[in-house]
């Protein structure tokens, strides 16, 4: 059988600023709850876009892995998450500088 060409996805399809659907929002909420229940402090965020959800989810994922799977001595109590919420540029800027100091 001849090779069949797949449809191309235009770069314009990429829209990280797209409002996150309910599936993503729910998943973030559940992950957030799980991180808290695992004993890790985390200030709730309200990501609105897909990119914000992805950023936050990556951090929550890492935190959940660390909290549940790492030995007690390696666990951390609070989660440092970059500001993923819109309309908080001032805070974002402060937290960025804090992050850079830490690194």
């Amino acid at each position, binding site marked *: 059988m001849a090779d069949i060409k797949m449809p191309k996805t235009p770069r314009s399809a990429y829209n990280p600023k797209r409002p*996150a659907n309910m599936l993503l929002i729910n998943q973030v909420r559940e992950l957030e709850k799980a991180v808290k229940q695992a004993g890790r402090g985390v200030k709730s965020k309200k990501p609105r876009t897909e990119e914000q959800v992805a950023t936050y989810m990556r951090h929550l994922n890492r935190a959940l892995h660390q909290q549940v799977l790492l030995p007690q001595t390696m666990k951390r109590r609070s989660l440092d998450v970059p500001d993923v919420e819109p309309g908080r540029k001032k805070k974002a800027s402060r937290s960025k500088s804090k992050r850079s100091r830490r690194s």
Partner: protein
Amino acid sequence: MPPTGLDNLRHLVVLMMENRTFDHMFGGLKAAHPGIDIWPAGYTNPDFNGKEIPPQPKAEYQGQLDPDPNHDFAPVNEQIFGGGTTPDMRGFISSFFKQRKNVKSSHRIMYYFKPEQLPVLSNLALEYVTFNRWFASIPGPTLCNRAFAHYGTSFGHVGMEMKYFGHPIKSIYERLNAAGRTTKLYYFDRASSTLELINLLQDQPQIFATYEQFLADCHAGTLPDYSFVEPNYSDHDGLIASDQHPDHHVAEGERFIASIYMAIKSNPKLWPNTALLVTYDEHGGIFDHVPPPAPAGVDGFEAPPEKTGTGKSFKFDRLGVRVPAILISPWVKKGLVVNEVFEHASIPGTATEWLLPGFAGQRTDREARARTFLNLLSEPVMRTDGPNFV
């Protein structure tokens, strides 16, 4: 004596996409295969003005289903029953209309794809096995439906609840691990995550791996006995969502499906002994003409009225809306169309029947009674045809 293909089977892979229906994705395939069951002549949905709107081949990859069509339990009830007591599948437009109050855009819920728009899914359907009656497990949203693919039940949930700790019914992954079989749930990446991470995190790293690892495992011929693959759920880090959830670009989902298929098919040591099931978790509010039947068995749960949002409880005695499902293997008959009823509980049911014969652990009656599908690997000689996607 088992079919030859089943005798050769070493790996079962399940890929579950998001939120599309059979009629929506396969609506244009009837001309190429008369056995494909699409709507009968005269099937329409009334719009807000009472005008009858038929399905139309106007679906586009992106931009038509925004906002995301509602598919919580109560709206799906409306879509199925159309406000009446008969499941006539005539409430899709009225349900979608409520979101934007725009008559013209509400018609888009009746659009379907032409086969040439979906060369991957269409060709896989025509070349391998298409299920005419594969239904979502619940007339509701993603998470309760995906739970059926992992556990054979949603533990009484009809919404987006995610935690199923402490129940004696174990996921298919836990069952297989406990029996010394190998299994992996491949999620796209950590930013996309997997919806099952919360429930099964303790079983790292036995269970979880990423899409990149799936490709590597296919290349190395090290796939586990049973694999479940999840697409990318969001646009991030320069990557386009591949789950086909409205309003994500459907072509990217086509490419993702092709990548899973080609990763298996291009390894000559893997292809002869691997079966791939491609299906969708639920209908996403999009039209389909087949009224959902009752499941084969009951799981003993009941969702209360405050959870269903319909004013009535739900005893899990009706399936969700029909979704696309294709079984791919060089041991299935080309172009076979199956008319028996399947649902997502068929997935752990099939894996358990195949890998854990005589399974004595706890599972729902519903999963135990759900029809299994590996008997379809029935060709006496392995096929050497099948499409390649480039």
